[in-house]
């Protein structure tokens, strides 16, 4: 029987070329042929070539690391990170999703009390567009902080009464009051903080670190994300796994989210009848099949899949030990408070972050939602502070007294600040605040950050930055610098661009923040 002309299992080329068909058709057929051969079953040779280009020189030399799959991107040895001796080896990022109001927390503006209910001068706002939420307002009355501020520590830093625990550690913190961003709404703002770009698709800070620095502990994920259980009283803005995605980097560098209620990882224990040996054999078999697929198709994500299976296997033993708090001394509970015994709370997550720091997890990001206080600031903000203030202090103190703060960087940040003018009605008892990108306050402490420093200044309305602005990109560049990475040199070629965390727009390490 005659073979179909498009069948690649036998040489039929010449017959087709002899046919009295238009040349265009012949060319198209020839193209189809080559493509089919490239991807076809008989492409084992080509599959190896694909793998070689994916694995780089190392695979061709036969130098494949036993016991673990190689990522299909420039190997870590080629990256040569950190570029210089780092001050911090690991980082913990406390992300206050929603945008904490700086005027009520850390940016002390005593003159605003006299401005209560006065309209904010138009000159301060300039030509900034109003958000859709406040554009309809006829007035923009100034809402001073409902809570008094006091000075603390040797540095005499002013801290609001809402943060009594943070106030105790001001001599250690580097408070940055002049952070500013470009985005006005949550999703693009968090994307900008995390990935350097308002649009999705770029890797986040944790993924860059996982890719560049790798893990210190093979048995735990390099990049862990902890979500805090939401409080229905608060205005919780969504966070999604897009925020800790690895973008164009291999997906094994994506953040591993531990669950915020019940077991941190589901199905850690093997079911009855399956012991570690059996599990291992099963995984080996799955890996073999995956590798075959990799040879045939060459999708680098297969490597990520293999790596994640391996990590899951190791986590079966390491995670139960990680979350077993029974051996914690009583002083831990005295420090963190009773909330820390309940999985899913911010205090528990902070304690877990400290334990992960001890065990060499490179980057932990904790999300605390609910800071989006568009209204009812006096009602909601105290709850938020009560949930977080003590835990932040506890985390920093715990790391410090255990000798880990020297080489751990702790960052506290939201995605933007909040307006000085009230959103909605303003009464002596209550007010709301809208999003505000032009200035907000963050702090950092630990390896590389200069203690007891307040950096940057905003104007008397806490609306514009008047001194030492720190754009979010510069903030990220500084974080990378503390971890020993030059943000300009740490790139990944994708879509014809040398991509980096700080985006193509120039960014500068803020030397004033460094120790």
């Amino acid at each position: 029987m005659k073979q179909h002309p498009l069948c690649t299992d036998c040489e039929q080329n010449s017959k087709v070329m002899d046919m009295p068909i238009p040349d265009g058709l012949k060319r198209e057929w020839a193209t189809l042929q080559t493509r089919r051969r490239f991807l076809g079953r008989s492409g084992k040779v080509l599959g190896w070539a694909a793998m070689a280009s994916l694995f780089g020189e190392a695979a061709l030399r036969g130098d494949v690391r036993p016991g673990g799959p190689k990522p299909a991107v420039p190997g870590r040895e080629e990256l040569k990170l950190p570029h210089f001796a780092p001050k911090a080896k690991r980082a913990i990022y406390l992300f206050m999703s929603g945008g904490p109001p700086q005027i009520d927390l850390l940016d002390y503006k005593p003159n605003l009390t006299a401005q209560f209910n006065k309209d904010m001068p138009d000159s301060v706002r300039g030509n900034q567009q109003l958000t859709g939420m406040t554009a309809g307002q006829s007035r923009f009355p100034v809402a001073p902080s409902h809570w008094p501020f006091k000075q603390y520590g040797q540095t005499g830093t002013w801290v609001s009464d809402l943060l009594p625990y943070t106030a105790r550690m001001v001599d250690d913190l580097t408070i940055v009051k002049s952070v500013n961003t470009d985005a006005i709404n949550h999703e693009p703002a968090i994307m900008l903080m995390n990935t350097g770009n308002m649009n999705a698709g770029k890797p986040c800070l944790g993924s860059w670190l996982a890719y560049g620095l790798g893990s210190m502990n093979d048995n735990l994920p390099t990049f862990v994300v902890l979500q805090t259980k939401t409080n229905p009283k608060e205005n919780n803005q969504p966070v999604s796994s897009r925020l800790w995605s690895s973008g164009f980097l291999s997906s094994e560098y994506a953040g591993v989210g531990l669950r915020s209620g019940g077991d941190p990882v589901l199905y850690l224990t093997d079911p009855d009848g399956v012991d570690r040996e059996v599990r291992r054999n099963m995984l080996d078999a799955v890996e073999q099949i995956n590798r075959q697929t990799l040879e045939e198709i060459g999708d680098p994500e297969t490597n990520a899949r293999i790596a994640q299976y391996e990590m899951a296997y190791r986590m079966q033993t390491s995670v139960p030990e990680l979350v077993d708090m029974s051996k914690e001394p009583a002083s831990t509970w005295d420090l963190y408070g009773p909330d820390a015994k309940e999985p899913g709370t911010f205090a528990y997550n902070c304690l877990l972050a400290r334990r992960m720091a001890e065990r060499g997890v490179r980057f932990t990001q904790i999300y605390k939602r609910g800071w989006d206080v568009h209204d009812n600031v006096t009602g909601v903000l105290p709850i938020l502070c009560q949930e977080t203030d003590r835990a932040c202090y506890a985390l920093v103190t715990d790391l410090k007294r255990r000798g880990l703060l020297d080489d751990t960087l702790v960052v506290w940040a939201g995605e933007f600040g909040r307006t000085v003018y009230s959103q909605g009605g303003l009464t002596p008892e209550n007010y709301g605040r809208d999003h505000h990108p032009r200035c907000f306050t963050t702090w950092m402490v630990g390896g590389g950050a200069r203690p007891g420093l307040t950096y940057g200044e905003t104007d008397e309305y806490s609306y514009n930055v008047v001194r030492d602005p720190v754009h979010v990109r510069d903030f990220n560049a500084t974080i990378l610098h503390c971890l020993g990475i030059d943000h300009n040199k740490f790139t990944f070629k994708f879509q014809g661009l040398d991509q980096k965390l700080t985006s193509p727009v120039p960014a500068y390490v803020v030397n004033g923040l460094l120790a």
Partner: protein
Amino acid sequence: MAAGALSVALLLLPEIIKLDGKPHADWLQFVGRFHPLAVHLPIGLIVLVPVLEMAGAFRPALREAAGFVLALASAACIGTLILGFLLAYGSGDTGSIVSRHMWGGIGLAIGLLLCILARPAWCGGGSTRVYPALLGCVMLALLWTTHEGGSLTHGADYLTRYMPSPLKRFAVFGAVNAAIPYPDSFYAKHIHPIFESNCVACHGAGKTDGGLRLDSFEALMKGGKDGPVVVRRDAGKSILIDRVTLPAGSPHAMPAEGRTPLKPAEIAWIGAWIRAGASPSDREVAGVTIPSEPKDLPPEPVGDYSRWADEIEQMRHSQGAKLLPVSARPSDGLILSTVDVAPAFGDAQLAQFEKFAPYVVEANLARTAITDASFDILARFTHLRALHMEGTAVTGNGLAKLSALSRLNYLNLSETKVTADSLVPLKSMSNLRHVYAFNTAAQPAPGGDDAKPSPGGAR
């Protein structure tokens, strides 16, 4: 002749217009302040003269021009000199740099006059050496005078402050620091540096504005033409505080001429020091605590371990414990990381890493199976800067052996079995600045007092 009379007049000028350090009429300063502006004209013209003379060897017309330019230069130089005198006389500036600059300028003017005298002989072919030699001297005088003038305006260390360190050995000019009698005092450590970096450029040995020098304690207390600037125990009456706290645009604000004002913290320190008695020897001043954490020593580079690279890789596969580079620079050293195999890592395994000891700068042995016997082995890791032993079973018996580690800066013994007694040998290790013994018998974990927030307003 005219030139001779002029030269003598120039030489006598400092006697005629005595620079007595007192300011005079304002118009003198107004006119005199054009000196730094006008000075560029003679400089340019003087430099042009040798250029024209040399180019004139190829183009004779240029040589004719050189004579004209020389005359212009001389006139401009004398004019500028007069402006300079008016400036110095009017503002009352004195100081060694001022007088050197003045004599340099006078010498330059006289030199130029001599050049004018000597030039016809050289042009005519009579003497071939006098004029070029004179011109050479004039160029050297110009270099020196202008350098002194620049030092007056910008400070003696203007050119050398940002010099790369390898070249600093060649910087013979620049500030000479007199020995400070009490180097540990508050004055020496915090007050004197403020004056050095902000004030001494105009109130120092080289330039003494207002007769006030701030480069030593005696001079500071002596004061200037307005009398003492520091009144002991009374910051309110001290003119120094007065001047540095004036608003930025004010004519008498110090540092003058729009230079960066002192930082509020610096002014506060000076005020507190004055209120405490303005002592040159006191180490502390009431009310001021400056966090004086002595900085850790900079890390030392380790030797080249590239020939061990294969063995290091091999150790990772056989042992599980890893030697990771601190950074891309091999000289930053290696970190011994045992976190993946901690329960199985004991003294015997540690001993296997001894051959890499000269390159290991940090050892993370937390929660491993090591014991007190490991101190013997660790004592041989001479380049160790940081040692993590938290969560191990060590009791501290034999901790004294670690005193061999002169570079050890950080030691973490949290949650081990050490006691206060066993930690005593560590006190003699001068570089060991960071010791942690949390939750041990030596430093029991604190009780419930951390639960209370601090009262506010603690200032």
